[in-house]
């Protein structure tokens, strides 16, 4: 089966198990080139594990994950390196290297290509940092010296360091206050327009979904229970879907008092 043209990421019949606990069963999902797909779901629904599967950090018990037409489980080191140069990941905790300054964190993936001048690397890294609004005065700060919002933006700069075709964002706004979160979403919108990558967002934040996603996949009980545009999915009658979309309307969520705003 060769993947159809325009499908960047293809998950087929994925099953994940830890001991006796089944996280995903028969999960299938396709991500098309250029779209922004949000994978949403309550906590414990297996979102983060799904991301780890997509990134090849976990091995599927059954099924397969195909990225850029290559089955992740059947790659050798060189193929994996080639794939990893084409995607970028923003980790939830930032995943910044605490021993390196902001600029060096962003420069690391560029240096790892091992065919660039260091001066050029630093200039590209500085350009990426300026794209996320980090000025030269912060270039040498260690992650511990950066505020949470700034560290998140440095993480984003590192994720886009290689101008990835595919960008994974794990809970991009988690832990940011509403103002910062909105600013970060605006930044993501801007960068998505400028770099035009395919984006996969793992989130539980409805506002992020509404602002960025062209399609939404709702993950519940180990599988995708709804998939489509925000408006389509909101109409699906499933407890997990209504839990996600009705959350704020019911006033159950803390920290955000905006009226529910579904669709785009």
């Amino acid at each position, binding site marked *: 089966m060769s993947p159809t043209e325009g499908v960047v990421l293809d998950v087929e019949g994925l099953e994940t198990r830890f001991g006796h606990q089944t996280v995903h069963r028969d999960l299938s999902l396709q991500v098309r080139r250029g779209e922004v797909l949000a994978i949403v779901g309550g906590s414990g629904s297996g979102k983060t594990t799904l991301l780890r599967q997509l990134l090849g950090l976990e091995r599927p018990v059954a099924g397969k994950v195909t990225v850029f037409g290559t089955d992740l489980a059947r790659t050798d080191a060189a193929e994996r390196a080639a794939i990893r140069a084409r995607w970028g990941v923003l980790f939830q905790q930032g995943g910044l*290297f*605490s021993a390196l300054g902001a*600029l060096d964190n962003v420069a690391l993936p560029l240096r790892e290509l091992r065919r660039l*001048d260091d001066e050029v690397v630093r200039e*590209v890294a500085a*350009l990426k940092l300026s794209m996320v609004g980090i000025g030269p005065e912060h270039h*040498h700060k260690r992650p511990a010296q950066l505020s949470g919002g700034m560290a998140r933006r440095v993480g984003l700069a590192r994720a886009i360091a290689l101008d990835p075709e595919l960008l994974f964002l794990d809970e991009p706004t988690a832990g940011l206050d509403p103002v910062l979160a909105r600013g970060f979403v605006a930044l993501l919108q801007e960068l998505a327009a*400028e770099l035009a990558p395919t984006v996969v967002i793992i989130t539980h934040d409805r506002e992020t979904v509404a602002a960025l996603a062209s399609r939404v996949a709702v993950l519940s009980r180990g599988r995708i229970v709804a998939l489509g545009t925000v408006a389509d999915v909101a109409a699906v009658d499933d407890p997990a879907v209504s839990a996600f979309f009705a959350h704020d309307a019911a006033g159950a969520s803390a920290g955000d008092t905006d009226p529910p705003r579904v669709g785009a």
Partner: protein
Amino acid sequence: MQSGSGHMQGGQDGPAWRVDAADPGAGAQVRLSGRWQLRTFSGRQPDMAAELARLVAAHPQAAWSLRDVTRLDSLAAVLLWRAWGRRLPDRVDLRPEHRTLFARLAAMSAAPSAPVAPRSEAVRAGVRPLLSHAVELLALSGQVLLDIARVIAQPSRLPWRDLSAAVFRTGTQALPITAMVGFLVGVVFCYLSGRQLQQFGADVFIVNLLGITVVRELGPMLAAILVAGRSGSAITAQIGVMRLNQELDAMTVLGLPHGLRLVLPRVLALLLVMPLLVAWTSVATLAGGVLAAQVELGIAPGQFIERLRATLPILNVGIGLLKGVVFGALVAIVSCHFGLRTRPDTASLGRSVTASVVTSITVVILADALFAVTFSGMGLRR
């Protein structure tokens, strides 16, 4: 008229990057097209940069067209920007989305600030930090004394569970390694000194020699160095990771004093355990000595022990155990100090553990020298 120089292309997938240079006299034109992307530069970037620089030099007045560039990534933009001499050419035709990219580069204007060399940090790590370490160590020792007083007044405040865990980790689990090292050192030491004494026919004095050095000096030192290496490093690493995980901050916020909850149990544990470990190590070392004496010099174990009892002033055992108490406290306080001083990054953690072990051992040896001076007239027969 097509110029011979300016024609290059590369890449393997899709429409690759491409340069066409036309040079009809005054109206020279350089046209870039295709995908200018990181991955399509299969060669080395310095070659690419040199190529572009040559192109710019060959067509100084050229009009540049980037209309047909389908993708332009940051690396390509930076390379072009540098080839152009950090400014846009006078005549350039750009797509609007690429214009923003070059506008950003222009806004960055000056080259990115050179990295602050970590060298300056190393230079500063001279005398002043030493002083601040000394002051902080003193403060921590004082804190421990105050905490001990507080615990005596109110024993329930001591985290007994932590204390017993620390006793187990630093004491019980250290028994095999200290015994093994002590035994081997005893064998080697007895063998080498026995050979020398034999030349004077003074074989039997090996017992005096071994007794005084092992009980008074070697046992406490071996135990302290081993404990500094295995328990001291563990203490520093554990507290350091707590800094990384913000556990230390959480404790402060919850009103759990670091001194009472982290430092005191570890210091008390080593205070209790070290004299016992010293005794254990000394016995193991002497056992090694007994074995070597029998094999090498033909001194029967019974004879050895008899002579040891007759010749070794018991005061030396007291000095050895006292050393154990002091060394244990020093190792614990130094290790806790470096753990608490760790900054929340991984490199700092590594440095802390190294510094902790090195400082512990140095401090132990310094203290041992002080002991030697203080007790110079005691426990030694003339």
